[in-house]
């Protein structure tokens, strides 16, 4: 049972609102080690210095989008096993399937509740403590 407080999480979304909402939800779940990036490129840059266990990323972002970020993370040995949860604006089957192809761990449809977020994370890591 992983400790929520040990889960280093990177939140990637081009919208400050979304980042704040996700952060607030994560904090409510006890996941307090969070960092944020506004797009895929910045996320990769952040990961240069930050070991990350979980990336929660939006799909549609300027510069490098969520799928691109996922591919970059998977393509790079040291990060290839980082958990990635993709946020989508709508339940888009095709998009989720593409993400699955690149090894996404789970997906989350906006808007979501803290409870849903918790379930999605636990589906990847097992129950949080």
């Amino acid at each position, binding site marked *: 049972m992983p400790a929520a407080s040990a889960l280093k999480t990177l939140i990637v979304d081009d*919208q400050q609102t979304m980042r704040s909402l996700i952060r607030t939800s994560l904090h409510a779940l006890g996941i307090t080690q969070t960092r944020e990036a506004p797009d895929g490129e910045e996320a990769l840059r952040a990961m240069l210095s930050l070991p990350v266990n979980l990336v929660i990323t939006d799909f*549609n972002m300027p510069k490098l989008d969520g799928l691109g970020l996922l591919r970059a993370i998977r393509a*790079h040995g040291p990060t290839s096993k980082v958990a990635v949860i993709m946020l989508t604006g709508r339940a888009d089957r095709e998009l989720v399937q593409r993400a699955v192809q690149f090894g996404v761990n789970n997906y989350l449809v906006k808007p979501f509740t803290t409870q849903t977020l918790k379930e999605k994370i636990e589906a990847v890591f097992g129950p949080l403590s």
Partner: protein
Amino acid sequence: MDPFESIKQTFFQECDELLTDAEQGLLAMESGEADDETINAVFRAVHSVKGGAGAFGLEDLIRFAHVFETVMDEIRSGKMELTDEVAKTLLRAFDVLADHVAAARDGGKVEEGRSQGAYGELRGLIGGEEEDDDAMGGGDEDFGFVPLTLSIEGEDAPGGFIDLDAQNAEAGVELPAPDQAPQDELASWTVEFSPKSEMYAKANEAGLVLRELARLGETRVTLIDETLPPLDQLSAEQAYVSWRIQLFTDSDEASIREVFEFVEDDCNLIITRDGAEPSVAAPTDDGLSDDDRAAADSANADLDIAALLARVGGGDAPAEAAPEIVAEAPPEAPAEDVAALIARAQSVAPPPAAKAPTPAPTPPPVAAAAPAAAAAPAAAAANAAPAAAASVTIRVDLDRVDRLINAVGELVIQQAMLSQRVLESGLARSSNVALGLEDLELLTREIQDSVMAIRAQPVKSVFQRMPRLAREVADMTGKRVKLVMEGEGTEVDKTVIERLADPITHMLRNAIDHGLEDPEGRAEAGKPAEGVVRLRALHRGGRIVIELQDDGRGINRPRVRGIAVARGLITEDQVLSDEEIDNLIFLPGFSTAEVISDISGRGVGMDVVRRSIQGLGGRISISSEPGKGSKFTMSLPLTLAVLDGMVVTAAEQTLVAPLSAIVESLTPRTEDVHYIGGKDAVIRIRDTFVPLIDVGVALGFRETAIDPASGVAVLVESEGGGKAALLVEAIQGQRQVVIKSLEANYQQIDGVAAATILGDGRVALILDVDALVTTQRRKPAARPSEKRMAS
């Protein structure tokens, strides 16, 4: 504040930005200037609005944003053609979307018919039935998705950071041995390409050469940077880096060499068929020596520098971040490697080996063949700026800023007083105290400027409301308008910005409603059907100037004159210049039912615009050319807190006249002064007569006027264009003064705009020039017709 509530505030702020972006994109789409990225940005903006609305359960907004997003999605995926009609529909719908956002923020509701109308139009574009709620983003459909589980404990902990050592090692591993070449029958070549500085001097780019090479077959490019000196020994005109390219191709050596045709003399080129002996082409000159070389093209040299700077961890990297450290892949890693990672992530084939990567959207074309080198400067530059901007912005309560500004105002006064006391005390100007005070004065001025700059904001916040207004007025009047805005980044004090919106709104309405002809009228005049209105902001002479120009019919002078006569503003036989006729429209009482319409009228005329501009210490004027259009020019002070003034003495009082109103000053000659009805003085200035106002009398400091010849006349111009000469005893000098409101501290006084505190600690009144001039003119004897007695 409830964190949720505070995030909601963030959301609405973000919405403003998103809507601005979306509107700009939509305007570009309407004018046919939008590229894919613009369209995608609009989609993303609307999508983000919807996403945030979803999080806060703003149902009306979600519903509207959703259908908008769907249309944008169809356009960006090419399913829907972007016709003029579609673009116009989107723009109309955008206004409704903005209303929905505003309604959600203010707790109101968008008028049902308006919202439904726009909604229906958008739906009409898509066709088909209304989607169910799930598709609108509410549901969490099950696609038979099985989450990929991970364990966070033990060896397999899914943690990690990007490790460029590993990244390079990986690349090495992925480099197949020749017999594992992707295309078995293709030959493998190794090309070593070392440009000399001459190559860059001739404006050749390595990136382009590499890209050309990539046309021959699959390339794997390695950057060789061993010869990079430490940053402090770097010469901008030297070439330091080279490339080793592995090329799989069926072309022969001659074809490969042909790629280097233009640069062959300026580089060292070694082309080897793998497994064969090296074939050396160019003379082996050490391209990296420190020889003095011909002046290099600095653009290319800069590129290398930028790449190097990026490598050592950003533009501000200290010199000690030498290349050998870089080679050990520190955490603040080479930016180009991130770029390479990105390029890899975006390349089409899932095994992301160094197949010539498809260009990433942001870096310039050179990135395509040489991500390891050339992508860095652009990417680094592009990313450094926003990141820096984000990290240095803080939010400060406006009250605090105002307190600071007030305190600095006091500081300026105190400093001036101190300087004056020191002077009065008889200390020599060269004394240490006096010199120190001079420094203090400079510093004070600098602090004042900096503090004022805190409140400065770009006029964009006002300008961005105008495109919508233009569309609405155009729709109502059946005219076609293109609004061109320039200088939106021009900064001006926040208080000025807030009060600019109304005058600009009014003038824009006026320009479209009255200025522009309808399409038929324009066709007759031989003009394009679409009228152009230009809104422009710029700094000029310490003031902000706002121009609003239309290419319409211009002022109808005979008609304006007729109206002015009918309203009793001028007499039938009064001779006025074209400019004076144009400016009649600013007179109170000019604008009446005869010339106003639903749109621009609303019972107020240009005199209201002029008054509000004057209230800001500004002036407005119009220039017009019949048939070609009109141009309104507003000039405003950058701040309302400080004023450039002329300090004068009248009736032993020290007064300040705003410099912006002063045209010239002169010593009256007795023969130039005449009295009308034996009482009201006028003074002849060149061939014009203007009223001569004794300031001491006008303000009630004394009963009788002084002898004009013993004083100084300051010629001032009121905003209405009316001139008058203010008679004072003496001019003390020009000074910047801090404005203290008289109304806030005492009460309003006619003829006095405000007060200030001078260097000697005395209070000085700031003259309200317009009031003085107008009061004089309202006197029965001093009608405007007397103004041009000479003609």
